[in-house]
Structure formats: structure tokens, C-alpha cells
């Protein structure tokens, strides 16, 4: 009896080690990526110091590099994307789990998954050749005339209606993010026990009340996870943004003005970064993007912990 047990224990240890190494591989790869980007970018960071993060001067010819414009463009385009994508994704998921007739649920869910599979360059080309001219000709002039005059937010909408800029980038990103967030939301909405929903309906709740008071609280953690998955994609998206953001080192209050993002700057310039300082600045940009993503994820974790604590006390 002892002999077989020993082998099974050994096999168990071996298996545990195997799984552990797979787990540690993630940490190792993560640390490796962060360290190598930081190491590659150290020259730019030591040359310009803290100015690298706050200066908006990116002049390749003069060897001056400041990341503020790219950071600004990345955050703004991702924010626009999430402002549009989250409510729509919520609507899609709710429709598919609560409202839609059964025969429709399968096809629409499959369509969303297909949307997620479209390569980002296709979204970029669609953005440049279809969306941007349409926006530039029909939507942005109207936005300019009608929203540009508003107090406070008016400045956001004054600008050249050329169809290419931060707002267009945000719109394209929103379309790209929706499949991710909505399919996560749909999956988790399906996990809500029927008896909970049925009880609420039995008490006379409307569909909205069920969604807001039963489905959402039950699935909160996973929904926030889905939103941040989408945000991660929006922050790091490269090709589609490069096509429609305008690639100009320019910070402006107007969302219609062209700008640039971290990922699109790297895509545009990395191949011909001859000057070591230029290459280093681009790697440092990559490191900044890494840090931004890390901060975003940490915030989501903190929010979740906060939520759990509140649930515990109430």
C-alpha cells in the first residue's frame, strides 16, 4: 500500500509544482516587461527628470521629449470610449438576458462575439474611411454650432470639424470595447439565480427595478471587472487609434482637435527612432502606459474592496 501512495504523493507534488510555475510565469513576465521598459526608458527619464511626464514638448528634431500630450490623449480617448461603451453594454446585456425573446438571444450574442473578433486595423480603416468623413461633414459642424456655445462644456466642442481627432478616436474605441464589456456583463447576468428575480417580479417590481436592485448588486464585482477589461483595451489600443486620432502633438480643450496617444506615438515612431534618446523616450512612454494600466487596475480593486466592506457593515 505504501508504494503506490508515495508515487501518488510525488505525482501530486510534481503537479503542484507545474501549476505553480505556470502561475509564477505570469508574475515573471509582468515584472520582466515592466523592468525592461523602465530600463530601456531610463535614459529619457534621467535626462528630462520629472519634466518627462509633465512637459508637452515632443520635438524629435531638437531631441526634446515630454509625454504629457500622449498621456492626455490616451486618458481622454479612453474616457470618452468608456462613457459611451458602459451604458450601451449594460443595455445590450440587459436586453439579452431579460427582455429579448428567446429566439433572438443566441444570434445577437453570437454577433457580439464576432464583433470582438474583428482585427483592430479593420476598425481603424472603418473609422478613417467611413466614420470620420461622415462625422466631419454631418455631425461635427452641427456639434460645433449647437454645443460649442454652451457654457462650461462649450470649449470641448469648438474646433475644426475635420472628422479626425480625440472624439472620433473615443467613438471608434467605444465600438471596439462594447463587445468585451457587454459579453462579460451578459455572462454574469445569466448567473443571477432565477428565484431572486422571480421573487422580485412577484412583489411587483418592474424590469428596471429588477435590473437595478437585483441583477446589478448581485453581479457588481464581475461587472466592474468587465468594465475595467474594456478600459484596459481602450488604453492600449494602437492601430485603430493611430488611424483616427490625427497624430499631432497638441493639447487642446476641444475634443474635435487632433491629438495623439501613447500607443499610437510608439507605433508611428518606433521603426525610425535612430537617436538613442528618441528610442528611450518611446520605451519610457510604454512604461508610462504600463503604470497607467496598473493604477487603473488598482483603483478597480480598491473600489471592489470598498464595496465589499460597505456590504459587510450595512
Amino acid at each position, binding site marked *: 500500500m505504501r508504494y503506490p501512495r508515495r508515487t501518488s504523493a510525488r505525482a501530486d507534488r510534481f503537479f503542484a509544482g507545474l501549476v505553480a510555475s505556470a502561475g509564477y510565469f505570469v508574475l515573471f513576465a509582468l515584472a520582466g516587461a515592466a523592468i525592461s521598459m523602465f530600463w530601456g526608458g531610463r535614459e529619457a527619464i534621467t535626462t528630462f527628470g520629472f519634466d518627462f511626464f509633465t512637459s508637452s514638448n515632443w520635438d524629435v*528634431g531638437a531631441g526634446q521629449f515630454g509625454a504629457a500630450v500622449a498621456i492626455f490623449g490616451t486618458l481622454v480617448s479612453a474616457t470618452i470610449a468608456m462613457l459611451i461603451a458602459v451604458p450601451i453594454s449594460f443595455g445590450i446585456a440587459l436586453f439579452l438576458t431579460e427582455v429579448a425573446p428567446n429566439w433572438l438571444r443566441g444570434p445577437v450574442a453570437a454577433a457580439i462575439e464576432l464583433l470582438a473578433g474583428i482585427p483592430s486595423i479593420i476598425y481603424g480603416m472603418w473609422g478613417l474611411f467611413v466614420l470620420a468623413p461622415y462625422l466631419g*461633414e454631418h455631425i461635427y459642424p452641427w456639434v460645433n454650432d449647437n454645443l460649442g456655445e454652451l457654457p462650461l462644456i462649450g470649449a470641448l466642442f469648438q474646433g475644426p470639424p475635420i472628422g479626425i481627432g480625440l472624439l472620433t478616436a473615443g467613438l471608434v474605441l467605444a465600438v471596439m470595447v462594447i463587445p468585451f464589456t457587454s459579453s462579460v456583463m451578459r455572462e454574469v447576468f445569466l448567473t443571477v439565480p432565477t428565484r431572486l428575480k422571480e421573487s422580485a417580479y412577484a412583489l411587483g417590481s418592474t424590469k428596471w427595478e429588477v435590473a437595478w436592485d437585483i441583477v446589478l448588486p448581485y453581479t457588481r464585482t464581475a461587472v466592474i471587472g468587465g468594465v475595467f477589461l474594456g478600459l484596459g483595451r481602450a488604453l492600449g489600443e494602437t492601430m485603430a487609434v493611430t488611424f483616427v486620432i490625427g497624430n499631432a502633438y497638441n493639447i487642446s480643450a476641444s475634443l474635435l482637435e487632433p491629438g495623439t496617444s501613447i500607443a499610437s506615438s510608439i507605433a508611428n515612431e518606433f521603426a*525610425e527612432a535612430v537617436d538613442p534618446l528618441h528610442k528611450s523616450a518611446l520605451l519610457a512612454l510604454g512604461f508610462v502606459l504600463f503604470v497607467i494600466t496598473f493604477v487603473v487596475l488598482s483603483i478597480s480593486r480598491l473600489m471592489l474592496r470598498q464595496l465589499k466592506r460597505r456590504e459587510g457593515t450595512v
Partner: protein
Amino acid sequence: MINSIKLRVAALALAAAFVAPAHAADITGAGASFIFPVMTRWSADYNKANGTRVNYQSIGSGGGIAQIKGATVDFGSSDAPLPPEELAAAGLGQFPSAIGGVVPVVNIPGITAGQVRFTGPVLADIFLGKITQWNDPAIVAINEGVTLPETRITVVHRTDGSGTTFNFVNYLSKVSPEWQTKVGEGVSVKWPTGIGGKGNEGVAAYVKQIKGGVGYVELSYALQSKMSYVAMQNKAGKWVQPGAESFQAAAASADWASAKDFYLIMTDAPGDASWPIAATNFILMYKQPKDAARSKAVTDFFSWVYVNGRTQAEELHYVPLPEPLVKQVQEYWTANFKF
């Protein structure tokens, strides 16, 4: 029947597999998108004639210089010549491949190619962001008889390191002191205004998309994508249209014989018929390469281009090198290249 076809296909595939190593002389190059259209034609025709394939990647002049310095390609290509000191430091040699021209292109409803005219200073003011409407008095004054709409001007420039940019801003610096002090020269500069496209292709695509857009591309890109290029006033004060003749005239004014390592920039050329933004494409190679056979294959290719590639170049609106210049290049090879 089907079986025999299958057999033949298999035999061919097998033969190809064995023949492939014999193509070890296949050569790779990378750089300027300026010359990509004609390079594609040359390599296709050269492959037919000699069986050697030339694989050229259009990644921009900045990229071409970076790739050859990293020795990842057999030759690099740039529209911005490297100064002799920089060549010497890197152990590189440099020679011209073909001459072409950078043309401003516009997208104004109702305006056809060659209809609008720019002077150098007006072009500089547009790219400085000082002239912002198409019906600005400065543009209207030099375009009598052309109705220009009250449309906003959107400047489109290159975002990658580009020899097309190098020649364009070199010209603007020569004609506008303000450009010279505010922006300056280089393969990439800090643009005062506008949006950025990657490669000649990218700039062409944006200008076509944006009403009121103005950009600058190599002539064959403008013609291929049927864009409205503009006429320019040259140094002699004459109006010229872009094309082989005006590029040729600019090339004829250049003094190649006294240019060390062919370091010569052709913008703002003198002469009544000269196009003001003519540009030369340069090939960069190691003087003492690791793989001599491949570098020999590159010079063989360009020897063939100088003789048999002239019509293809002309068809695509480039100017082939004049005879004396070809001779000078060949002398340069013998004197400098050790393979």
C-alpha cells in the same frame, strides 16, 4: 489526368524547394516611401530578367537609415542625404538612385490638379498656421480667375521620420525666414499645426478624406490617387507645374561633380523651368559589408536599374539619373566599395 497534374504540382513544389537556396542572392532593402512605387516596378522586372528578387520595405527614410545602421538589410534608402562625416563614422557609402519631386496636394471642392498656385512664402505661412482659410487674400492674390471657397485649411504632415519631409521643410526654410527660426529642418520637425499621417500613403489618404486639406507627397502618389497637386513659383520667379520636365530641369542645375559622397540637396533650384522641391533618393550601403556577395548583388541591381530601369522610372514620373552622374556613381563604387 488529375493525378498527373497533382504529380506535376508536387514535382514543381519539390523543384522549387531545391531551387530556393540558389536564390541566396535575394536582396533586402528598406527606407524611403518616396521611391517605393518605382522600386516595386524595378524589382519585378529585375526578377524577370535575372531571377534575383529585391525585397524593398517602404518604412520611411528615418527607418531606412536605422535599418542599415543596424545591418538588418542589405541596403537602406533615404531621401535625406547623410553628411560625409556621418557616413565615414558609420562606414557607409551613399549614392543616388533616382530623382523625383515633392508636390503640395490640396483637397478643395471644385479645384482640379494644377489649378491652384502657391509661392514659397504662402506655402510656408499655410504650414505655419498663419493662413487658415482657402479664400485668404494672400492665396487669392496669386490665383486670379480661380474661385476659392471659404473653407478652413487643414494641414496634413508626416508623423514618421521622412525624407519627403526633409526636402519639403528644407525648401520652406530657404524661402521663409520665419519657418527657418520657428520650425527649422530635419527628417521630422515639430509641426506648428495640422494632423499627421504615416508615410506618403498616409498623407495622401488624409488629404483625400479631409475637405480643405493640404499636404505634400511624392508626385507619383499624387497621380496614383488622383489628387489635386498645385503649381509653384520657383526661384527664378516663374510658375511651374510638377512633372518630369521641371524635375529634370532642377536636376540639371545641380553640381554633382563637386558634391562629396553625393551630399547635395536640390530644393529651390535656379533655372526658369526648375521645380522648386525636387528631391533625390539615396541608397546607403556598407563599404565593407559582412556578406560581400549580397552587397555585390545590390550594386548589380542598381547597375541594371541605371541602364534598364529608365523607362519604368519615367512612366512613374521619376527622373532617371543623367549619364555623367551614372558614370560618377560607378567610379564611386570602385573607389569606395570593397567587394
